[in-house]
């Protein structure tokens, strides 16, 4: 769902950065974690492997491992402990089975 989940309450004077989410350009702030960069724009980080629901992280401290996302090259990042950088392009959709195929 594209409705932003997190609400910014303060610290909004930081420099802007651009990230791409599922192919769409979005805006975030320098110093955001990747999780905040994503969830201030959308409501999900990934799809559950074993259920129909989307997930949006859980513990925010690198313990639950529920916030892993992947970039366009299939590299995996734990969104809550990764700093968002300008130019990051992330997919939150269900991954394809072609992931092991070499380019």
């Amino acid at each position, binding site marked *: 769902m594209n409705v932003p989940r997190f609400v910014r309450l303060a610290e909004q004077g930081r420099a802007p950065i651009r990230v791409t989410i599922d192919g769409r350009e979005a805006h975030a702030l320098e*110093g955001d974690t990747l999780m905040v960069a994503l969830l201030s724009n959308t409501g999900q980080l990934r799809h559950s492997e074993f259920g129909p*629901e989307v997930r949006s992280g*859980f513990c925010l401290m690198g*313990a*639950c491992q529920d916030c892993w996302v992947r970039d366009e090259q299939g590299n995996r990042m734990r969104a809550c402990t990764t700093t968002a950088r300008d130019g990051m392009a992330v997919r939150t959709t269900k991954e394809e089975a072609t992931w092991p195929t070499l380019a």
Partner: protein
Amino acid sequence: MADPRVIVVGAGPAGVRAAQALVEAGLRPTVVDEGRRDGGQIYRRQPEGFARSYPQLYGTEAQKAKDLHDSFEALRPHIDYRPETLAWNLTAGQLHVVAGGERTAVLPYDSLIVCSGATDRLLPVEGWHYAGCYSLGAAQIALKSQACSIGKRVVFMGTGPLLYLVASQYLKAGAQVAAVLDTSSLSTRIRALPALAARPALLWNGLKLVAMLRSAGVRLMAGISPVAVTGDDERGVSGVRLRDAQGREHSFECDAVGLGYHLRSEGQLADLAKCHFDFDEPSRQWLPRIDEDGRSSAPGVYLAGDGARILGADGAEAAGRLAALAALKDAGRPHAVVEMPQLRKRLATMDKFRRGLLQAFPWPHQLASQLPDRAIVCRCEGVSAGDLRATVRDLGAQEMNRAKALCRVGMGRCQGRYCGHAAAELVADAAVLPIERVGRLRGQGPVKPLPMSVPLAVEEQA
């Protein structure tokens, strides 16, 4: 005689004070921490470039937070500091680390002081897997570290002092708090007052928070039983349903839930070090055995802070220092030995408060057996309460590791951190066994997911 090689794992209150004691004694310890910055969880630092003040971030604990951060800054030139470094495994005298998710190393040690801290302790509720349901600690981190609320309208549910603290922090920061729902009843809290009075300042702070929430018009309920987090697969959380102490159903609309039942010690490294664990009756969880100074049952391995006993930040600072002094003494480099009795005494006082907190805000284990079969228990693997019950009833599992082997509970990415305790309650209930008889999930490395891109490790010389 060469200096003993000492590694401290964790740069929170316990780790920082341990490192400080070691540096005072003339050593240069290695400090390994997963975070980008020091401070651990409770004194988690905001990223560089954020502008909020210490009182804004840490409230009544602002001075303590500042002291801790300043102490660490002063220590930095005297320690081998490894931030963003995960201790992913451990063998006798060797710590296996990965830095930045990329660079591996094997760090030899003579003494290891593990200050691994804690996570929230969770008890599943139907629907807790929906997007928008977070731990209480997560709700706090979102605010403290990123100045965000986890949603537009938040319900906080569970038990423990953190419940009221986070709710009041959200309120102060301008977020919308719909309700604070506590499974502990007022009467259990009142009965615990004598023990809580062991630390009167903390008790007073707690009461003030409750009063502040009430006067702001936040709906406070005690003695509740969570029924479900409502929502849907695509949009996530839409509300919370519960029963009050009289059994009547209530519901609140919200788009985010902060859920938590006090804390759970991170014992994975202690487990890999083959430390002995004992079942702790007051908290109904397995804890690594330590003596009064923090020595574990494994030679050369010391445990301090919330990773060994949930005593809070002040307790962690005292325990960290004490464990370091014990390590120094054991290594034949005694330092400040005269302080050890008073540190032990402080810890004993804090332990009294710990028991008071557990009495006031007990882990509502009976709620596990009330979970409907369809409720997801293991979030990572999608294992339901019904699956667990069937594993006991039909496949004969009477113990946690057997249940794991047969139904996959605890096999997911979080390795049982968030489902382990509730799963044990369910297995014990279904097997009609006392909780300690079903045991605990056996720790296996890596402590956290290890990227498969990492190279062979270099063994570092001290």
